[in-house]
């Protein structure tokens, strides 16, 4: 199949544009998206094509998020930009108490096709209020599907699914990945939710990860391969639902599990994966399950401190040493 190289940001735009062409009720809005194509340029690819469906808003997060419910129930398919995952908190109730509950509270009367999307995670030296990864919260509270892709090909296929299904979805796009390039099939395709991707097959240790940490883990795996340690790197791609089967089968094979995420280690989503795996594959585990995550403090502005707080390849390598191989 023919493929083209494109950035993560452009892969998203391509998916949205294709679907906008088919479905005139898709529109997108948020802060700073229409004039300059998003604060990370992530909307640039859409500008000029559907300008009446790419809309700037005031700084009013509670309405930005809550409006999605009204828009969906009025018969449209809104894609809402949240600007920074950190500012999901400024309209949090509209998400947790409205978007995530109204279908259930109504007894399932109608579909609620909403996409919340935006940048999650570290952006260098942006300090405590602009570098949080908060996807774990949406795995805990029920009511939204959680997508957290690591490559242009994945983000394209997952958007195509998101834009053709009936439920609220939140897409965490990592700030540092918008410019990352990769090959994407020229033909349209969808990637189902709940299907992990084994980014690298291996035999010694299963690594479960997402987003930017997929790449850090892959680098660690490449290095470890030189010393004869074989990592199987599983990219979950979606956290709600998450692919238990692929993870558990891998752990049954390797006997070892390391979970790697950028968000805080304490009570992060890795804890859920660890809890389920130790329950379902107890007899297969040769070692404890280890987790890599950010240190449990807010992010510091000072560069060295940020590097220390935020996990990367080095932390993966260090943690692997704990396994009794």
């Amino acid at each position, binding site marked *: 199949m023919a493929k083209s190289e494109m950035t993560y940001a452009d892969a998203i735009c391509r998916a949205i544009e294709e679907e906008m062409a088919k479905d*005139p*009720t898709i*529109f997108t*809005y948020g802060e700073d998206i229409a004039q300059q194509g998003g604060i990370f340029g992530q909307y640039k690819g859409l500008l000029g094509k559907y300008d*009446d*469906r790419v*809309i700037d*808003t*005031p700084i*009013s*997060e*509670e*309405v930005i*998020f*809550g*409006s*999605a*419910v*009204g*828009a*969906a*129930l*009025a*018969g*449209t398919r*809104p894609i809402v930009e949240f600007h920074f995952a950190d500012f999901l908190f400024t*309209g949090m*109730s*509209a998400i947790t*108490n*409205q978007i995530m509950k*109204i*279908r*259930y*509270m*109504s*007894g*399932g*009367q*109608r*579909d609620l096709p909403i996409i919340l999307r935006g940048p999650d995670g570290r952006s260098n030296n942006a300090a405590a209020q602009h570098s949080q990864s908060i996807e774990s919260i949406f795995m805990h509270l*029920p*009511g939204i*599907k959680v997508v957290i892709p690591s490559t242009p090909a994945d983000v394209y296929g997952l958007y195509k699914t998101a834009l053709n*299904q*009936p*439920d609220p979805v939140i897409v965490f796009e990592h700030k540092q990945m918008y410019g990352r390039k990769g090959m994407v099939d020229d033909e349209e395709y969808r990637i189902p939710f709940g299907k992990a991707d084994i980014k690298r097959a291996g035999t010694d240790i299963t690594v479960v990860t997402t987003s930017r940490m997929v790449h850090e883990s892959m680098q660690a795996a490449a290095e470890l391969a030189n010393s004869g340690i074989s990592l199987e790197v599983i990219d979950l791609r979606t956290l*709600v*639902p998450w692919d238990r089967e692929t993870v558990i089968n891998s752990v049954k094979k390797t006997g070892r599990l390391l979970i790697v995420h950028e968000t805080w280690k304490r009570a992060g989503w890795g804890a859920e994966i660890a809890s389920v795996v130790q329950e379902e594959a107890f007899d297969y585990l040769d070692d404890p399950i280890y987790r890599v995550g950010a240190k449990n403090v807010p992010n510091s502005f000072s560069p060295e401190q940020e590097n220390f707080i935020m996990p990367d390849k080095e932390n993966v390598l260090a943690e692997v040493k704990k396994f009794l191989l």
Partner: protein
Amino acid sequence: MDITKEKLIELYEKMVLIRSFEMKAEEKFYNNEIPGFIHLYIGEEAIATGIIDHLRKDDLITSTHRGHGHMLAKGADPKLMMAELYGKRTGYCKGKGGSMHIMNFDLGVLGANGEVAGGLPIAAGAGMAIKMIKKTDQVVVAFFGDGASNRGAFHEALNWASIYNLPIIFVVEYNQYASTVNSNFATSVDNIADRAKGYDIKGITVDGNDLLEVYETAAEVISAVRNGSGPVLLECKTYRLKGHFVGDPQEYREDAEVEKKWKDEPISKFERYLMEKDYLDDETKNEIWSKYTKVIDEALEYARNDSFPTAKEALTDLFADDTGYDY
């Protein structure tokens, strides 16, 4: 404005329906038949009635925790409403919502809402979709309380509706209280409508206990909004005759205050008007009340006889592709 006798009686009946529903709900709550907690619309019937009568079925409303009146005015079946209050299977929300979350999208009711001001962003989004994407002439009415007008969501929604010139009527039901707190204390302005200036939109204050005034003002406002005037903030002054919720000890106000306010309640006020006009006499009045007593008794019977949803069905309806709690 010329309003026919038939229309006036129809409006009267709508108020009687709401009042009858609420009185029965109150009774059955005290009876321990209705679980949870319920907030009654008694004393505020003229607002929902006078406004919603001008709406089409495809017009949309957002409601509050005090939502029974809005639902009934928008055409809800009292049977399915009562069943919902009982948590039963054929209730509007299959028993999952209850009083505080009663809603029906087919009727254009985008939800009673347990979050104060929670409906305002929803209304803003509905208005946006209508105006900018669907390009129909539907309108949206957002009901909310005087207490809600102090939440940030109010401000954001009004600014939003103004800049996009959305077809939304923001209706504040100024019933003097936010739970235990008097709005004279917690709200910095006497008239919420004065806040309209801060959004460069029209603000109007009416006597929310005067059905005719509400009805006539709403007629004008809604038709203007439908024709593209942009949003309007319509304030209806009323009074919450009952406790905040059924069972509220109401230590924060004097009985005398409430008693006095009963003299101004909207249904008898409108009755007096109809009787003066000779549109209503004691006999018809009694007939109407009996009719709705019966309607509500039937609704009650219906709700009681309806079955509960099964426990396991708690795991449906979260997502369209139901995979329940394993999801």
